[in-house]
Structures are given as C-alpha cells and as structure tokens.
C-alpha cells in the first residue's frame, strides 16, 4: 500500500482518497468511520463561528445517477462545540483536515486559530460555497479577497493552509495564483457548481433555498479542467475534487495535477466499501502505468508527448 501514500504540503496521507468536506463530517463518529473504511484522510464539515442549522429541507435533489444538487446551507454545531467531534475522530486514528468558513478575513483567522487547537493536520478554507448568503462564493470569487483571507489565516496559524476554490468563475487559475501568493500551502478544487432545479408540476424551485450546488459525475469534467489549469499556474500541491467515483476518475485527477483527491457524492451509492475499492483500483492503475510512487503520477498527463 506504500505506493498509494501521498504528501500534501508536508502532511502525509496513507492514500490519496480523502473524505470531502460536508460529507459524513458533521460528527466525529462519522469521520472515524470513514477512517476505518479506508479513507486516507478526512476533511471536516465546514465549521463556522456560531451554531448554524442550515437551510430547511428539501436540501438535496438527485438528478439521475450523474448529479446531485444540494443546498445544505452550512449547518454546523459551531467551532466551540465541534472540537469534541475532532477529538473523537483523532482518538480513533483519523488524519483530520479542518474545514472552516467565515464572513471575512478576521472571522477566518479566528476560526483558524481555534481549529488549530484541535490537532488537525491542515486547514481547508471553504472560500467557495456557492449558496451561502454573505459567505462562500461571495468571498471566493474575488482574487483580492482570497488574498486577504489566506494571508490573515497564514498569519494566525502554523498549520498548512489549503484554499478551496469555486468553479463559478471565469478564471480559477487567477484565484489559485492569488491564494498561492498569499501563502496558501495547497489548493483544493473544486467545490460545487451553481445550479437550480425546478419542479415543473408545482413550478417551484425544488430546494428550499432555491439555488444549490451541483456535484457528482456531471462536474468531473469541470473539476478536471480546473485542476489542469491550476497545475499550470501554481507550484503548490492540488487536492482534486469533483465527481470522483472510480479509481480511473481519481487517476485522471492525479495525472491532471492533483496530489490527493476528495470523494463526496459517490459515497451515497458507494458507502463503506468505496474507499477500499478506490485504493485497490488505483494501486493497480499506478502499477499498470509503471509508477512506483504516487508522486510520479502527479501531473503526468501534462508531460505526455
């Protein structure tokens, strides 16, 4: 299994398959379960300063087997209460990345400091949730604000900082550059893509919040394009996210430039067995292509002639 281990900004994960933020991550028990299931690491639900219920139901809409629209609205117990969840996950051996969201650079920095206390191995800044008013893509779409937030967090903590970017932009490369220049140690991409589902019978948007974020296989080509572009623009490692459900999907992200990947929506259908299947399949793919370490595969597609 050593072939599968990977490093993201100084942090080693036993395999590159991380639990994506917002999936199973509201409780420490679920994070621990993902670890037992074989996740290389687990990213927490995005945590804010205050207890937040999120949007009312309906919060998800399944679109065939190829896509999911969600507007959870960042429910979370709040940083203060969440520390105990992380402690539980860490006690069971999980390598935990703490995801946080805030309304401005100061809030991010304060949260980052609190999150650092919990013993997470890295911070992921959710700069990109497309459906939270005043938060999320309102922050993440503007390189100047990305710079400000990342810089403030870097000044506040010693942990590696991953900037999670939105695909709802014309130039994700520019956002990645801004993050890198501000000191981000890694780039996570992508978050969900803004979308809407309308019920033709009642003529209402299906999700209570209206707009939602698209995830699942439908966004894999979008995520791959983003990772490819980011790889061309920055030197820091990339964590690839979006529509990964097979070992091949993950391999494509790696050769496009990702050093690790996060798995989200696919866990709905894949359940407990998915992490094991992904690792076993990727191990075979790396071997098939003659890569003796995962690192050799990272960005390999850029080098094919």
């Amino acid at each position, binding site marked *: 299994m050593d072939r599968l281990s990977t490093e993201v900004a100084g942090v080693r994960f036993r395999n590159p398959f991380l639990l994506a933020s917002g999936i199973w991550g*509201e*409780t420490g028990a679920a994070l621990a379960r993902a670890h037992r299931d074989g996740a290389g690491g687990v990213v927490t639900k995005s945590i804010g300063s205050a207890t937040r219920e999120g949007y009312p*139901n309906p*919060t*998800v809409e399944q679109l065939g087997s190829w896509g999911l629209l969600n507007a959870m609205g960042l429910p979370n117990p709040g940083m203060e209460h969440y520390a105990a969840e992380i402690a539980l996950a860490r006690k069971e051996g999980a390598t935990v990345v703490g995801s946080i969201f805030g309304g401005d650079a100061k809030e991010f920095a304060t949260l980052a400091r609190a999150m650092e206390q919990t013993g997470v191995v890295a911070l992921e800044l959710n700069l990109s949730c497309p459906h939270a008013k005043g938060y999320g893509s309102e922050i993440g779409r503007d390189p100047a604000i990305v710079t400000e937030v990342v810089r403030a967090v870097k000044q506040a903590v010693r942990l590696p900082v991953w900037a999670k970017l939105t695909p709802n932009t014309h130039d994700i490369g520019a956002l990645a550059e801004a993050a890198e220049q501000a000191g981000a140690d890694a780039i996570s991409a992508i978050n969900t893509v803004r979308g809407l589902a309308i019920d033709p*019978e009642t003529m209402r948007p299906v999700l209570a919040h209206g707009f939602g974020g698209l995830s699942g296989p439908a966004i894999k080509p979008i995520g791959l394009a983003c990772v490819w572009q980011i790889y061309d623009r920055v030197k820091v490692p990339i964590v690839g996210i979006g529509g990964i459900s097979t070992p091949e999907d993950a391999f494509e992200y790696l050769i496009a430039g990702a050093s690790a990947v996060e798995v989200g929506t696919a866990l709905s259908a894949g359940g407990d067995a998915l992490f094991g299947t992904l690792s076993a399949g990727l191990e075979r793919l790396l071997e098939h292509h003659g890569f003796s370490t995962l690192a050799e595969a990272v960005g390999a597609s850029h080098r094919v002639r």
Partner: protein
Amino acid sequence: MRTLVRVEEVVRETPSMVTLRFSYPAPALPGQFVMVWVPGDDEVPMSLSYREDGSPKGITVKVMGSTSRHLTELKVGDRIGIRGPYGNHFPLDGNRVLVVGGGSGTAALAPAAEAAHARGARVDVALGAVTAAELLFRDRLRRIAGDLQVSTDDGSEGHHGFVTALVGPMLASARYDAVWTCGPEIMMSKVMAAAKPLSVPVFGSMERIMKCAINLCDACSLGPYHVCADGPVFTHVQLEGLEDFGRYKRSMAGLRIPV
C-alpha cells in the same frame, strides 16, 4: 428524482394522526421510509404505513410541528413530493414475532406485521398510546394478530400504564424469534431490557433528523451509524453499544442534545 403524487385518500386515524394514501410505484420493504415534500414547505421523513405493491402506498402522520400539521390538513387531490424508499427494513424471517408499538411508531410496524402474517408467521402485538383514541391501527392489527394487547397511559383502554409493562408477560408466555419495536427511545430501551434475559433479539426503528436521506450529510448521525442508510431498523446489539441511544440526538445544526 422526486415524484409528485396526488393524495388519493385521507383517513383520520386518531385525533392527532392522519393517513395519506397515494400511488407511488417504487417497491418498498416493511419498515422503509420516504422523504415527503410539502411544496412550498418543508420535507420530512415518514415511514410507509402502507407499502404493498399494487395498492396505494400510505404514510401516517402525527402532528408534531408545522410540517406534520400541514400534512394532516391536506385534502384528496393535493400534491406532495415523494422520494425513496430509503433505509433498511424489519427482518423478513421469524416464525413468531412480538410487535411492540408506541404512538405513531406503529406506522412503521403495521406493514411489517402484515408482511410477517402474510408469510405465515404468528404475530403478537403490544400496542400503547396516551389514551384509547390515540391507539393507532388497533383494528388493522387485530385482523392479523395472534394476540393483541393494549395499554394506555390514562387507562382509558387496556392496561393502565406503559406498553412496556405488557412486554414482559407476553415474552414469558411463549418463545419468540424476535421483537420488533418502534416508539419513544425510552420505550424501546425498556423493551430491550425485557427481552435480554430471554435472549430474544430486538429490532428497533430509530428516528434522527433527516436531510439528504441518501447517506451524505451526516444529519442523521447515531454513533457511527447513519439512520437513513444503516437504519432506521437497528438490532439491540447495535443500539446497546451506543452512548446516544435513549440519551442524545443531534439538532438541525449537528449539536448533540438530549433526546
């Protein structure tokens, strides 16, 4: 993937509970639940209280807050959105089963009891409610039950007290393959305590906040389990190992709060 259905029949079961029947073709196993969308309002989980193929499916709603109230006020012809069914189900085996239902919990149990009866098992039933008028599906279950015993908190019918008081004697009177239960957690944990010395396995249906219902969002966390996917039916072995069972649940925000 949400199907809009027309309410075909509305049955007032008790002062606080109403059954809505509707056609929804997806097959369902006894104990599974659906997510019910009230357009313009919320979406909530409801056990299928009628699940047979061919006949209209049904949910039986107890008024808890605004959405459940809204549901009980719907009329024939009104539309609701259904997705699912989700989750696991009560066992499909056992020759003699004791069904212990409290309040609206009987909604999930009735189709399971009927399915067991239909395949030839003997089903005994212990049914509890606050008061006689709130006894859900008493007549429906009497049709299939070998033995049906009733309790009410106010003594207006059957045993005066909690349904759990019926369980001990019933378990002692015959050899059961399993106990199936749904109701308040404190009730279910007492049922388990009663069954334990006799080594009769207990299967209890649990409730936690449901948002996605498809094993993603973690809203329905119960220890290491997700009620929407690993449940709603759990064995006593699973439940007894849980710090939260009977004690804690999660708020809409994922905060751990007392049950």
